[in-house]
């Protein structure tokens, strides 16, 4: 009951924050500047003279994306599709754009049983799909069952793994989701296989979006071209490789959006998109690598570049199960110390990313400053190298570093290679296709390889459990530490938020001490909006909500 009460307080707090956010677009606000050179979106909003008449209705916002793989929630596994369907749907919960705390959306209220296994959600009434039918609890049952079902072979099904009955659906031995039950039209009950305190925090993810049964029955495989949600914008058209058009949902359960619609312009290349942005044909785009500093200095656009840390980690996985990294923490630590992360961030990243100090990026509730304590320190690296048994790199075989082709991975690898060479450590860098690299990494043909890990939801758990629990399919390093396993399980079942975060922090430090990864940086956004775009807030997951956006032109 205590937990219950606490939740209600939090919910109330959230509402206040939410209100503040809604008004953020029209009220002047003190800029929140975390680092001197980083301008947050609020600063942008604040600098503009506020239009006296308030938000303007109308207009279409043009946004650059790549061709999404799918717009069907359970198959929408990359950011492109996600940013589209986040405008088309709302989830049971959503994340506060500033704090990234979880707050209810389609849920009015909820209970968690004392053992942390049974969740009861009381749904909001009067929420309608874009086709006019009211949203009911059964829609969630259907959607989640479909997502977990073997037939669907969803790319995102694993998010449902904590729920009872998931395995049976995956194996195709059941037709119904045992752990998901609609008590009545507005009550949804979910039973977990094990206590997972962050479960609520996962529910903002797109895979949990309610997909209506009648739509699937009507469109089948073509559903991605005919999506139907409950969000502020409704789907109009997807012309493949050209554009996706959304229009305002006039029957939205919250206040209707200001924009008449959104046009996602599909482009393959960010350089091209940026050119279009500069020509005024896009409202929101990405500043290409190499042009960030120039754009920041640009009098027209300089103030509208959004640079802020995102919840994504860039690192090299070391192969700890094979020599020379096996059983040689000193060597791994030496590698970690010999990489000039700051230089990479400044030169290659143009100051957009920030040197990684741990696994959990800033912005995730529970983030701890400088968790690892590993800095660029060639002397210490040389000393560690000697302690590891390879003074000046003598006796150390040439290490193979793999990266996947594209972006700046190659230049970063070359920088690392050059850093290591200065200490006598020879690294051979090799670029591969993504899959080939994973394959080679798993088979131990390369000593370490590049990966990025992006938050699907803002929890510490997401940066620790999947990567380091010995039974997780995403444990790339093959890390196996029974103590960590046990702590992770304990943390998951700790319902108290503070206590849970404390446990995760402890785990993070423990794993960091083993130097399983050579950490490079936390990604940053390098997005840009046109000066006339108001009320646009980009959160640390690079999510945005167009509900409150309006165009001042």
């Amino acid at each position, binding site marked *: 009951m205590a937990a219950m009460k606490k939740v209600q307080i939090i919910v109330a707090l959230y509402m206040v924050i939410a209100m503040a956010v809604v008004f953020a677009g029209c009220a002047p606000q003190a800029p929140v500047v975390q680092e001197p050179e980083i301008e947050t979106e609020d600063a942008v909003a604040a600098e503009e003279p506020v239009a006296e008449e308030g938000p303007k209705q109308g207009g279409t916002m043009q946004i650059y994306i790549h061709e999404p793989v799918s717009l069907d929630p359970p198959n929408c596994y990359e950011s492109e599709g996600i940013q589209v369907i986040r405008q088309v749907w709302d989830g049971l919960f959503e994340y506060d754009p500033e704090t990234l705390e979880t707050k209810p959306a389609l849920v009015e209220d909820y209970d968690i049983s004392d053992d942390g296994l049974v969740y009861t959600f009381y749904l909001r009434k009067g929420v309608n799909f874009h086709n006019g039918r009211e949203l009911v609890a059964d829609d969630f049952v259907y959607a989640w069952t479909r997502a977990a079902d073997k037939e669907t072979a969803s790319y995102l099904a694993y998010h449902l793994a904590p729920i009872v009955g998931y395995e049976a659906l995956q194996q195709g031995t059941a037709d119904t989701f045992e752990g998901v039950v609609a008590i009545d039209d507005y009550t949804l009950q979910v039973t977990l296989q094990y206590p997972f305190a962050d479960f609520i925090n996962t529910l903002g993810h797109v895979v949990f979006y309610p997909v209506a049964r009648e739509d699937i029955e009507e469109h089948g495989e073509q559903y*991605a071209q005919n999506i139907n949600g409950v969000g502020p914008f409704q789907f109009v058209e997807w012309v493949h490789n050209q554009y996706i058009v959304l229009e305002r949902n006039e029957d939205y359960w919250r206040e209707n959006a200001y924009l008449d619609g959104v046009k996602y312009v599909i482009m393959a290349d960010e350089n091209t998109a940026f050119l279009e942005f500069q020509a005024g044909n896009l409202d929101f785009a990405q500043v290409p690598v190499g042009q960030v500093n120039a754009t920041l200095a640009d009098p027209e656009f300089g103030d509208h570049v959004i640079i802020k840390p995102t919840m994504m980690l860039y690192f090299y996985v070391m192969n700890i199960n094979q020599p020379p990294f096996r059983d040689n923490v000193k060597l791994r630590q030496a590698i970690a110390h010999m990489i000039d992360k700051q230089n990479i961030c400044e030169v290659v990243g143009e100051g957009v990313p920030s040197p990684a100090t741990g696994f959990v990026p800033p912005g995730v509730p529970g983030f701890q400053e400088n968790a690892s304590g590993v800095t660029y320190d060639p002397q210490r690296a040389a000393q560690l190298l000697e302690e590891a048994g390879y003074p000046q790199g003598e006796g150390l075989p040439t290490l193979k570093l793999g990266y996947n082709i594209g972006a700046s991975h190659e230049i970063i690898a070359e920088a690392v290679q050059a850093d290591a060479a200065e200490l006598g450590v020879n690294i051979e860098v090799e670029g591969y*296709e993504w899959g080939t690299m994973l*394959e080679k990494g798993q088979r131990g043909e390369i000593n370490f390889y590049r990966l990025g890990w992006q938050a699907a939801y803002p929890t510490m758990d997401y940066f620790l459990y999947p990567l380091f629990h010995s039974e997780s399919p995403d444990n790339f390093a093959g890390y196996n530490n029974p103590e960590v396993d046990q702590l992770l399980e304990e943390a998951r079942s700790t319902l108290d938020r503070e206590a849970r975060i404390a446990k995760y922090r402890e785990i993070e430090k423990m794993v960091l001490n083993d130097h399983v990864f050579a950490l490079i940086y936390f990604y940053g956004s390098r997005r840009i909006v046109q000066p006339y775009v108001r009320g646009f807030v980009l959160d640390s997951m690079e999510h945005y909500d167009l509900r409150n956006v309006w165009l001042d032109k």
Partner: protein
Amino acid sequence: MLYYILKRILQMIPVLIGVTLILFLLMYIIPEDPARLILQQGATDQALANLREKMGIDQPLHIQYFRYMKNLLQGDLGTSYRYRRPVTGILADAYPNSIRLAFAAILIEILIGLCAGMIAAVKKYSFWDTLVTVSTTLAVCVPVFWLGMIMQNLFGLRLGWLPISGMGDGSIQYYILPAFTLASVSTAYVARMTRSSMLEVMSHDYITTAFAKGLSYRLVVGKHALKNALIPVVTLIGLNLGALMGGVVLTETVFNWPGIGRTIYLAILERDTPVVLGGTLVLVIIFLVLNLVVDVLYGLLDPRIRVAKQEVKV
């Protein structure tokens, strides 16, 4: 004639089977598992198995091949692994755009390549000839994507004369930069071929005859020489069209053109075998059909090889 065309069409079959077989093998030699590639996270064995089953890649290779060929005969090119859409739909989206672009490029080849070649031939050793020779030689040496990016920056951004990328509403200005980029190399070849072909033709006896008849220079060049000189040029242009279709990858990538080259290229990277197979197959068919068309056209231009016309000799 009909018999000839029919025979040629029959000859395409082994080529098509060969192409599918090679592609099939290529795509399956790749050591990695498309399922694992798609399931970047949460890839439990069960999830992988489910996805493989869904994709139909849990079967042995030869069974997959025969099933693919069987479906192919029914006009079914399968479903994209990645986009989970019928391949026919993906191709139907992409092909018209590429074909339009290729035709725009061909138009440039004909307009510019042919004219430049003719001018160079007619004004042999003049300033214009040198200009054409130098620029065509250089054009062959410049990597297409390099040229594309320079033009994009210059005409699109700096000068703002032309759209930078994409198809927009499909109006003509969107075609100019990509079509020029795509056509650059082949226009140079057409110009060179036209020039040498013209020069060769101009040295023939029948040109002297035409002059001796009292025809004006213009008429001799425009009528007697051109039609003969065109024969090899038409072949080149026709074959180019096929090559253009395959060569659009770079241009489409630079100019963000929603066409087939980019689609197949991305599909290769994503191991989206059905899209690669289907896309390439159609590409190859277009190439073969174009070859046939060129041969037929050749007959129209050159009466000497016209088929099935009775020979009368005195």
